[in-house]
């Protein structure tokens, strides 16, 4: 058993331009991620980030901590919307804690926006590699 590395909390800023770029790259053009009036029409508090974008940033933190590691599974619930203002951006923090068992490393994540958790039980399981 090797000691677990300290996983340095990663911070990402999300802007409306990032959402446009993610929509293009990810093929998700749901207007609730672009258009204030559509978002409001379905009861959302404003334009929200794609859940998969926030999850993608959580996965980015994991691959930053464990470059090249094989990911066995990745999952989360989308518990609170990340509202992205028209001007400036919003910050997302991804913290992680790792445990080894049976040749696998389980990374339990905490993903917050302005101190509030936005993902429920985000977790990645990795095949233990050289690290």
């Amino acid at each position, binding site marked *: 058993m090797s000691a677990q590395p300290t996983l340095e909390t990663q911070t*990402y800023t999300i802007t409306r331009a*990032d959402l446009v*770029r*993610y929509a*293009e*790259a*990810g*093929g*998700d*053009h*749901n*207007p*609730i991620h672009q258009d204030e009036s*559509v978002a409001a*029409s*379905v*009861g*959302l508090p404003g334009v929200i980030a*794609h*859940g*998969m*974008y926030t*999850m*993608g*940033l959580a*996965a*980015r933190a*994991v*691959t930053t901590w464990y470059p090249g590691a*094989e*990911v*066995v*599974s*990745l*999952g*989360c*619930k*989308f518990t609170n*919307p990340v509202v992205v203002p028209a001007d400036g951006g919003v910050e997302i923090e991804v913290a992680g804690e790792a445990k080894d068992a049976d040749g696998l490393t389980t990374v339990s994540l905490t993903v917050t926006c302005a101190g509030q958790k936005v993902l*429920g039980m985000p977790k*990645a399981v990795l095949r233990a590699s050289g690290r």
Partner: protein
Amino acid sequence: MPVDQELVGRTFPPTRPYEVTEEKVRDFTEATAGEYAGGAAPPTYPIVVAFDAMNAFLEAVSVDLFRIVHGNQKFAYERPVVPGDVLTATLTVTSLRQIAGNDIIGTTSAIKDQTGALVCTTSATLVHRGAA
């Protein structure tokens, strides 16, 4: 209008084959705060194909995408996605509940490569927000 309960257990046809290229993987990597130096795609990349399957499903059941909010998402990987893969997703509706005027739709998509081998299985819960 609530989604029809008879959908549970129904499997939709596979999506049109999607060719994974370095350019597409680079765009996705850079759009999720990364830098692409070749090789495997990011872990959430298979959503691109799963999303195609979801869109086809929503169209088949006449649900507007803007009424859908993502409830949860899970990936179980057989191997990473790499450029050169040609992927299809086959979506099955696994559960359907109504809560507070919303439909909670459980789906699972099997993502396979051009040899028919499973690359990953991904499950998603879609929240269909009813008309206000």
